[in-house]
């Protein structure tokens, strides 16, 4: 009951930014061409000191080290939760949710594709450090350091089980989102992942209404479905889940042998507990083999279909680029197909550039989107085919275990494992024994 009351209070507190955004929207934003004169100041506002970014990087490393200890060594859900709240308060509310590894994907992409772009060192470090930790300790970043994960974890009241096939299907969204984020960052249109970050508005106590509504909807879903953004949308989570399969150490539900009590399966709100497998029933093995062969044949077809679909979307994708949109608008204005001007077309004319240059740029961007769209579609087809193949392959398991890719290292299963309780009791007894002596 107390937990529900706390969650309700937290959710109500998160409604504050929505009210703030509403009151902000009552006043029009400043316009560049209204003739407004900025007041003379002795010194222009300066950028944030770089040293703060290094402090953030150091703090991230400390949080991840601590998370590794708490998740893998101490195995304490309470301690993990406390660290998660601290990370939410610092990286989320104090640092306004920026910079985060999720958005850093785009900085890294841009630095790879744009020879004139220099990535801030903090962004590079925020991208690389959690990946390196994942290769050693699994998804501890998701479990204890990510503010986006933490804000969803706090509101989770009554987790419902999502069927495995549906979860696998919905996860395609995250791959598509990652591909789209990389595509737009590479072509230089926009930082899509930052633009549609659903929780940054809550961290900053202000923001675009639509994004705040998206965030509020995800939190509302998150009351019953554990961390929907992390599981079905997070593009960084896609990278982490794949690297996590290679991790050296990972979450183990029980400290000793599994007694197959199934309590951990009920405790996990993310459906990350894999059950022991039985031998193939007679005849089913042959069916499974045929199904696998069919999906292997289907894979290149899916890639080709995805590539064709992505290529067909090239115009729509290109129209999301501000340069292309401006070019289209300027063309319509110059040919007299529309009357009036827009802020973007006025701003373009202020620069004194020739329209021909703008059209040339737009054509080049369109051709880049044609290639990029085909690659993105092919990538989505590859992932969809891979998922079908993965669903038709059965792994042998003798006991209940946390899936290395799906486990978000929240530590809930520790609380429910009788063997873990036994271990804790023994430790407590040993401690009190030492104390009595």
């Amino acid at each position, binding site marked *: 009951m107390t937990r529900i009351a706390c969650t309700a209070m937290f959710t109500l507190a998160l409604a504050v930014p929505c009210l703030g955004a509403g009151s902000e929207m009552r006043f029009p934003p*400043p316009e*560049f061409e209204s003739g407004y004169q*900025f007041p003379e100041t002795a010194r*222009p*506002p*300066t*950028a944030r000191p770089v040293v703060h970014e290094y402090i953030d990087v150091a703090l991230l490393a400390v949080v991840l080290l601590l998370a590794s200890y708490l998740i893998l060594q101490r195995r304490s859900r309470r301690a993990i939760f406390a660290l998660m709240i601290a990370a939410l308060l610092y990286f989320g509310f104090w640092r306004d949710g920026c910079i985060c590894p999720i958005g850093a994907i785009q900085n*890294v992409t*841009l*630095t790879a594709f744009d020879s*004139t*772009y*220099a*990535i*801030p*060192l903090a962004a*590079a470090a925020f991208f*690389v450090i959690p*990946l*390196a930790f994942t*290769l050693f300790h699994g998804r501890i970043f998701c479990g204890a350091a990510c503010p986006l994960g933490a804000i969803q974890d706090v509101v989770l009241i009554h987790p419902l089980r999502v069927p495995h096939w549906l979860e696998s299907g919905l996860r395609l969204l995250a791959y598509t989102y990652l591909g789209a984020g990389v595509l737009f960052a590479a072509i*230089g249109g*926009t*930082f899509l992942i930052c633009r549609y970050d659903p929780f940054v508005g809550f961290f900053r106590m202000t923001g675009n209404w639509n994004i705040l509504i998206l965030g509020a909807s995800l939190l509302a879903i998150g009351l019953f479905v554990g961390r929907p953004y992390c599981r079905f949308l997070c593009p960084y989570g896609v990278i982490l889940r794949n*690297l996590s*399969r*290679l*991790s*050296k150490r990972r979450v183990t539900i029980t400290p000793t042998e599994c007694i197959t009590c199934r309590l951990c399966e009920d405790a996990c709100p993310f459906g990350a507990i894999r059950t022991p497998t039985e031998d193939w029933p007679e005849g089913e093995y042959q069916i499974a083999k045929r199904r696998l062969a069919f999906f292997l044949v289907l894979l290149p077809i899916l890639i080709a279909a995805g590539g064709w679909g992505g290529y067909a979307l090239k115009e729509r994708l290109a129209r999301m680029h501000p*340069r292309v949109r*401006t070019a289209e608008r300027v063309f319509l204005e110059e040919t007299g197909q529309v009357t009036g001007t827009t802020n*973007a077309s006025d*701003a*373009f004319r*202020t*620069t004194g550039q020739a329209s021909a240059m703008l059209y040339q740029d737009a054509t080049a961007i369109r051709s880049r989107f044609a290639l990029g769209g085909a690659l993105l579609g092919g990538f989505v087809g590859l992932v969809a085919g891979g998922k079908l193949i993965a669903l038709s392959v059965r792994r042998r398991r003798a006991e209940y275990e946390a899936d290395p890719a799906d486990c978000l290292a929240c530590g809930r299963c520790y609380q429910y494992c009788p063997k873990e309780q036994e271990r804790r009791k023994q430790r407590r007894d040993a401690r009190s024994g030492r104390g009595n002596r």
Partner: protein
Amino acid sequence: MSGLLRRVGVPARRRFIQQTLRNISLAVLGLAGGATVLKRRRLLREGKCLNLGICRNCAVFADCGLPRALSTRSVLARRRDGE
């Protein structure tokens, strides 16, 4: 006996593949990180403004009054004047 040996061999082979892939991933991360730092240094030597980021292609950058643009323009002006 051979069946048992085959079964024992599977996890060992999987572990070996995982270890190899992990080391390759670490090497890729290290190389990418190193390349990023080198590129940043090169751009710094060339006097590129690192503050520009995503807004550098913005059509209204030259007249923009937002704090980040004001700050960036002052940095660029200082660099141009050789301060």
